């Protein structure tokens, strides 16, 4: 295998997959950091987003990309609604109960997808797409657009968190919740804003995975482990960390086929998760440990 083949067969798919993981992991790290619990319904919310985009596309008969913003908006609303209905009343009880509630929500979201859209796999677009060559690197259009979309999302989110008043309030809440409250930040607003952003990110992750792979009712559940591995690897609460972690997990999964049978790709994330918890639980960029 030449070097360029290695890049094209392992690194390119790894970066594409990893950037999708990153979008999901950023949401996980935000919930972990600001609301302080592991959100187990994250993957199934992504599934829901992917299917909403599918229906939108069917409705307008257009490119799947029109489905992305619609799905992001719907998923944001769903996430806020889920919080109000199922998580909010557990606010003052031990956080682990919210984790449990989120596992129940995962199951509920998935069964809604299964009832509404069925259990069979589907895709946004049929047919084989040939990749184009850019300086020897083979990229399909959808892969290129995926990378662009992820870059846009990450840059936009970073700008929001660094520059805007409410973005700073979210960071403050993640950093020191008591002091944020003493400074007059309303916890409920930050919580709602966080869920809106996280829901939108979920939908984006689900859409991009569906675009580069396929859609089925279990797709999001299988995203859960790599997303958590990425978030913890990068450092809980760190957006840049989740991006880095996502890319590492994605590339590691694509490289794992060199030494492991293909069906164990999914085990890579698990191994990374256990290793990072063992040697550096704060993650690469020194995040939080709950």
């Amino acid at each position, binding site marked *: 295998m030449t070097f360029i083949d290695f890049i094209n067969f392992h690194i390119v798919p790894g970066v594409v997959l990893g950037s999708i993981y990153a979008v999901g992991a950023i949401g996980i790290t935000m919930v972990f950091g600001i609301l302080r619990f592991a959100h187990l319904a994250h993957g199934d919310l992504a599934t829901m987003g992917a299917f909403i985009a599918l229906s939108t596309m069917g409705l307008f008969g257009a490119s799947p990309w029109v489905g992305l913003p619609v799905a992001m908006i719907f998923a944001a609303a769903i996430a806020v609604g889920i919080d109000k209905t199922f998580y909010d009343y557990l606010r003052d009880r031990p956080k682990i109960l919210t984790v449990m509630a989120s596992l129940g929500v995962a199951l509920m979201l998935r069964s809604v997808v299964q009832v509404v859209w069925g259990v069979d796999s589907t895709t946004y677009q049929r047919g084989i797409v040939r990749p184009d060559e850019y300086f020897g690197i083979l990229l399909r259009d959808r892969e290129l657009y995926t990378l662009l979309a992820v870059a846009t999302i990450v840059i936009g989110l970073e700008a929001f968190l660094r520059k805007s*008043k409410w973005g*700073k*309030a979210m*960071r*403050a809440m*993640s*950093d*020191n919740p*008591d*002091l*944020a*409250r*003493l*400074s*007059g*930040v*309303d916890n409920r607003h930050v919580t709602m804003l966080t869920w809106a952003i996280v829901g939108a990110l979920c939908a984006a992750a689900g859409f991009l995975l569906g675009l580069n792979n396929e859609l089925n009712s279990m797709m999001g559940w299988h995203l859960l482990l790599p997303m958590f591995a990425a978030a913890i690897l990068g450092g809980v609460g760190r957006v840049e960390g989740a991006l880095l972690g996502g890319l590492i997990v994605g590339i590691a999964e694509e490289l794992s086929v060199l030494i492991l049978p293909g069906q164990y790709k999914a085990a890579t994330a698990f191994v990374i998760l256990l290793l990072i918890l063992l040697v550096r639980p704060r993650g690469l960029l020194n995040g939080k440990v709950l």
Partner: protein
Amino acid sequence: MSALLSMQAVRGGYGDADILQGVSITVAPREIVVIVGPNGAGKSTAMKAVFGLLHVRGGQILFDGDDITGWAPNRIVKRGVCYVPQVDNVFREMTVHENFEMGAFLRKGDLDAAYDRVYGLFPDLRAKRKALAGDLSGGQRQMVAMGRALMLDPKLLLLDEPTAGLSPKYMEQIFTITRDVRDSGVSIMLVEQHAKQALAFCDRGYVLATGANRHEGTGAALLADREVAQMFLGG
């Protein structure tokens, strides 16, 4: 001179037990009031009572003409009271300037004057405005914490042991700044471990023990009191 803050026989605690068993403290406008007392006396708890972080079961807290007993901290902040907790009092992963911005979270309009004021009080921080608060030294971190609280332009500033763990040099500096803040028109309620130094520089002082008032008076009077000296000032 009518009091800005007046706690009258306040009782209350975190759970069912009353930690405060009748605490009365007044702070006049432009006054530095120091609270001293042994560890666990309820000094921090008294301060939290003012800020609405405690379940107050008896007594009254009046501030600037309002009965603020039982108000939520949010509302008290807006009324003009700011609080610097004893620990975890900065946003470590945010820059010095962002800490100040968070301090002004509730404020609308032009903040240039407010920034000028805090950077004027803490000139060392001007050069460090882009540094993460968590990376600063303990003394500078304490200044960031005070600056954050001053951004709202409070009438009353509550400082819980701002000099804990600081070198004497920084302690002097914090006291000097506290006086400057007072001179800019802010009343200050200060909890201190370093009783001797604090009583020497304050306007008036209170000695708390086991959740109740024990002594009160001007700093000089308390320093001269033999009983106070024996109990809290190490002879």
